């Protein structure tokens, strides 16, 4: 019997079989679904910030940053038996929730770039994306086939 795994902010979870993995209400954060269809092993990460390298103390989780969360999740999937060269990614989020002329606050764009860079470094291709614009998204992945659904207040539901 599969479980529904809920991924919080600054969190990632992995599943397989008939597990369903969901993360709610991505704003400027990014949801990354990784899937190996040869083993049916799935992972979903919800990062908040692009880069951990400026963080000098140990008060914070590696699951918060694109550059640490994604390699960690891939390691976990590998330990579960995933075929790493077969991994494919789908990403969503990176919105600008409040329009502002001050680019200091456009973290969504920086998050998108950081996730793409982290995936490129891991040699994981991006199959589909729904990023940017100005609204929140909930991302759901079914481990049995790797299907990913995006739902939002403004656009309703769609498969990614």
């Amino acid at each position, binding site marked *: 019997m599969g479980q529904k795994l809920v991924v*919080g*902010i*600054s*969190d990632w979870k992995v599943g397989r079989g008939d597990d369903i993995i969901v993360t*709610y*209400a*991505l*704003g*400027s*954060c990014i949801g990354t679904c990784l899937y190996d269809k040869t083993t049916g092993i799935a992972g979903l990460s919800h990062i*908040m*910030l692009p880069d951990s390298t*400026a*963080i000098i*103390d140990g*008060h*914070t*989780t590696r699951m*918060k940053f694109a550059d640490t969360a994604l390699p960690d999740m891939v390691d976990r999937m590998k330990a579960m038996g995933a075929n790493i060269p077969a991994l494919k990614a789908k990403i969503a989020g990176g*919105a600008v*929730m*409040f*329009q*502002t002329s001050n680019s200091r*606050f456009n*973290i969504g764009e920086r998050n998108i770039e950081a996730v793409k860079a982290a995936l490129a470094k891991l040699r994981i291709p991006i199959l589909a994306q729904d990023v940017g614009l*100005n*609204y*929140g*998204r*909930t991302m759901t992945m079914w481990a049995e086939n790797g299907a990913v659904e995006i739902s*939002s*207040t*403004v656009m309703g539901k769609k498969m990614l």
Partner: protein
Amino acid sequence: MAIGKYEDLNAMQIDVLREVGNIGSGNATTALSSMVGKMIDIEVPNVEVLGFNEAIEAVGGPEKVIAGVLIRINGDVDGMIMFLFEQNLIALISETFFGAAPENITALNEAELSALTEMGNIMAGSYVNAISQLAGLTIDVEPPMMTIDMLGAIMSVPAIEMGEMGDKLLFIDNNMIIDSTSIQSKMLLLPTIDSLDHLLGKLGVA
């Protein structure tokens, strides 16, 4: 002791922050009440130091659709004021300005959106004026911004801006109660960690 993370605050400092919220929110509620011509009650504020996910649960849950008005503040306290307007308050504000409540809060017209934004602006001004006067603080208020979306996506904005160094948010949380209903709109004051030492010093509890 310098505050390096929100969990470092002691009980007396929390009490002082609660009183700041009490003064600010009381004045903001009076402004709202006089604009819409209705009695609005306010609960004693809570000072919450919570993880990001717990913070979102505490204000209503990630997928709840709500109007968020965000006002950045800087000066003796840096951070933001966030108003979370529920359906019944959106209806009340729209009725006040336009004589009718909107049918669907996700499909407001430009005028209705402007009215909500302006209400947030007036309330933020009242909030900040009250704490400036009573605590001798100098605080600048930036122009308001608003959106209607899932609460989790709205709250990701303060989480991202204040959560780089730690994994928690501090917010002073006020419930506004309209017509005794349990649908409660909220106003949040979210100071950055970096501005807390200065703020607490100004308030005499550093």
